C-alpha cells in the first residue's frame, strides 16, 4: 500500500474512518509489532498484576450495581474476596486491620454420613466431595462405597455442623447439602414421580425426566411443612428446624411450593405458590408468601461463599454457627444492625468475624472444654 502514509492511516483509524483494507493493514502490522522484543521480567510481571488487582478491586466495588442487585452498599463493612492465595481487603471506613481471636477455628469441610434403612451406616471420606447413586453407590471419582441392592431401599445422607457434601441421584439430579442437613432418597425412583425428603438446607439442580406416557416426571422435595414440585430446575431450599421460616429460592426453571395444611397431616397440602426465576417463597407460621429476590445471598454457599448483603444478623450468625460448629449466645436483645460482606467459606473463623466487627457487631469468643461459644452483645447505646 503506497498511497496512504502510516501517519494518515493512524489518524483515520482514530477518527473511525478506515476502510476494511486499511484496517487489515493496521491489524496485520499490530501482530508483528515488537514480536522479537524481550518479554517483561517475570518478577515485574507479578508485582504489576498484583498492583492491578488491587486497583481493580477498588474500582469494581465502588461502582453501584443496578437498583435491584445492589451488591454491596458502602455504608459499612470490609469486603473480602479471596481468590487463589491472594487476599484482597478493601475497607470503606473504620479502623484498619482486625485482631484475630485466640483460638484458630477452622472452617467446615466435606463431612457426611450415609445411612441405609436397614441400619447400615457409612462415614464418608473427607477427601472426596460427592457421591453418585447409580446401580451401586460410588464417590465422584468412581471409588465404590456400597454395592447395589436387589430391592429398593432408602438412604439418608446427612451432614453435621461444619459439614457439606454433594450427591448425584439416580436420575442425574445434583444436590449440594449444606451443614447440619439431611437428604432422604430411594435407591431407585418410582415410575411416576421422584420424591426426596430434606431437613436443613440444600441446593438442587434437577434434571428433566420423562415418566409414563412420555410426560415429564416431577421431582418432589418434602420438608416439614412444605412440599416443592419441580420439573427441571435449579433451586435452594432452606428448612432448618431452628429457624422460623422455610425459604425456597428459585434460580432457574419453575417450581410449585405447597404449604402443609396441618402439623399432623403429612398428605395435606393446600395453599401453594408458583415461583419463577428470581422469586422466593417463605413459609412461616401459617402463611406462605412470595417475593422477588436477588438469589445470590441464598445460593452462594454452594459456590463456597458467605454472601451478606443487608443480611439479618440472626440469619448470618446462624450460617456461621452451623459452618464453624460454634454455639451462639445472645446477651440481651439481638442486635439490629445489618451485615455486609462476602468471603470464602474456606477461611478460618477469625476472618469472618472481622467482617462482622466491621458491620458493628460486638462479641466475644469463649471456649468451654471442646465447645466454642460466640457471645453476641447488643449494641452499646
Amino acid at each position, binding site marked *: 500500500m*503506497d498511497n*496512504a*502514509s*502510516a*501517519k494518515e*492511516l*493512524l*489518524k483515520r*483509524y*482514530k477518527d473511525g474512518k478506515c476502510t476494511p*483494507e486499511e484496517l*487489515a*493493514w*493496521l*491489524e*496485520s*502490522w*499490530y*501482530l*508483528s*509489532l*515488537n*514480536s522479537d*522484543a524481550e*518479554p*517483561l521480567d*517475570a*518478577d*515485574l*510481571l*507479578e508485582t*504489576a*498484576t498484583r*498492583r*492491578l*488487582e488491587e*486497583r*481493580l478491586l477498588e*474500582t*469494581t466495588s465502588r*461502582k453501584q450495581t443496578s437498583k435491584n*442487585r445492589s451488591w454491596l452498599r458502602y455504608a459499612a463493612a470490609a469486603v473480602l*474476596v*479471596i*481468590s*487463589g492465595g491472594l487476599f484482597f481487603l478493601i475497607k470503606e471506613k473504620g479502623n484498619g486491620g482486625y485482631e484475630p481471636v485466640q483460638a484458630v477455628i477452622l472452617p467446615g469441610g466435606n463431612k457426611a454420613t450415609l445411612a441405609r434403612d436397614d441400619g447400615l451406616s457409612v462415614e464418608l471420606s473427607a477427601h472426596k466431595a460427592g457421591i*453418585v447413586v447409580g446401580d451401586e453407590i460410588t464417590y*465422584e*471419582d*468412581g471409588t465404590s462405597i456400597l454395592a447395589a441392592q436387589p430391592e429398593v431401599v432408602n438412604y439418608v445422607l446427612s451432614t453435621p455442623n461444619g459439614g457439606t457434601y454433594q450427591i*448425584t441421584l439416580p436420575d*442425574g439430579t445434583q444436590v449440594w447439602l449444606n451443614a447440619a442437613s439431611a437428604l432422604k432418597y430411594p435407591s431407585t425412583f418410582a415410575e411416576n414421580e421422584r420424591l426426596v425428603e430434606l431437613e436443613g438446607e440444600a441446593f438442587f*439442580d434437577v*434434571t428433566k425426566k420423562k415418566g409414563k406416557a412420555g410426560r415429564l416426571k416431577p421431582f418432589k422435595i418434602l420438608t416439614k411443612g412444605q412440599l416443592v414440585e419441580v420439573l427441571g430446575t435449579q433451586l435452594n431450599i432452606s428448612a432448618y428446624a431452628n429457624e422460623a421460616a422455610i425459604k425456597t429460592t428459585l434460580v432457574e426453571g419453575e417450581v410449585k411450593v405447597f404449604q402443609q395444611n396441618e402439623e399432623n397431616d403429612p398428605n395435606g397440602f393446600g395453599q401453594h405458590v408458583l415461583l419463577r426465576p428470581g422469586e422466593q417463597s417463605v413459609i412461616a407460621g401459617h402463611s406462605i408468601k412470595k417475593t422477588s429476590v436477588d438469589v*445470590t445471598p441464598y445460593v452462594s454457599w454452594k*459456590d*463456597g461463599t458467605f454472601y451478606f448483603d443487608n443480611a439479618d444478623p440472626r440469619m448470618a450468625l446462624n450460617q456461621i454457627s452451623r459452618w464453624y460448629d460454634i454455639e451462639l449466645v445472645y446477651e440481651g436483645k439481638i442486635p439490629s444492625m445489618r451485615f455486609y460482606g*462476602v468471603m*470464602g467459606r*474456606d477461611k478460618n473463623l477469625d476472618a469472618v468475624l472481622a467482617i462482622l466487627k466491621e458491620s458493628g457487631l460486638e462479641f466475644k469468643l469463649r471456649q468451654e472444654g471442646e465447645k466454642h461459644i460466640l457471645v453476641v452483645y447488643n449494641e452499646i447505646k
Partner: protein
Amino acid sequence: MNQYRELSDEELIQLLRRSNHGAFAEIYRRYKGVLYLHTYRKLTNEEETDDLLHDLFAALWDRRTSLTIRDSLSAYLYRSVRNRVLDHIAHQKVVDRYEHSFQNYLTNGPLLADHLVRERELRRVIEVEVANLPIKMQQIFKLSRFHQFSHKEIAKQLTVSEKTVKNQVNNALKILRKKLSPLFFLLLSFYQ
C-alpha cells in the same frame, strides 16, 4: 475450596452476568498474565499497560449484566486488548513512537486480508506468551485451557447436550485426571 478454578470460561461468563465477584476474580486471574505480557510488549511502558488493562477489566465488570460474547471469552478479551492498544497507539501523544514501524510494514509487511486469519494469529501471538509467564501463572492458564477443552470434548464424545454433560462433568473430569500423566496430576496438586 475455590471451585471457580474448575469452571470453564463459559460458566464464568454466566456467573459474571449475575454479578458474581468470584467469577470476575477468576477471569482476571486466568488472563492477567498473557494479557499483561502482550500489552507490555506492544506499549513497552508499564504505566500505560497498567491503565489499559485496568480500563479493560473495569469495563468488563461494568458491562457484566448485558454482556454478549458471540464466540469465546478468550477471543473477546484478545480482540478487546488489541483494539484498545490500537486506539492508544493512534492517540496523538504516542503516535510518533509507532509511525516508523507502521510505515515500514506498509511497504514490506504481509497483508493478512482475512479477518479470521488475523484473529487466529492474534490468539497465537498472545498465547505464545504463556512460555514467558512465571511457572505458577503458566499452570493457572494451562489448567484453565484444560477445563475449556474438557467440557466441549466430553460433550462431543458423549454426543449429549452440554447441559446434561455439565451434570456429569465433575465425575468425568475427576476420572480423567487420574488417567492423565503424573505431571498433570502434579500440576493439579498445586491447587488442592
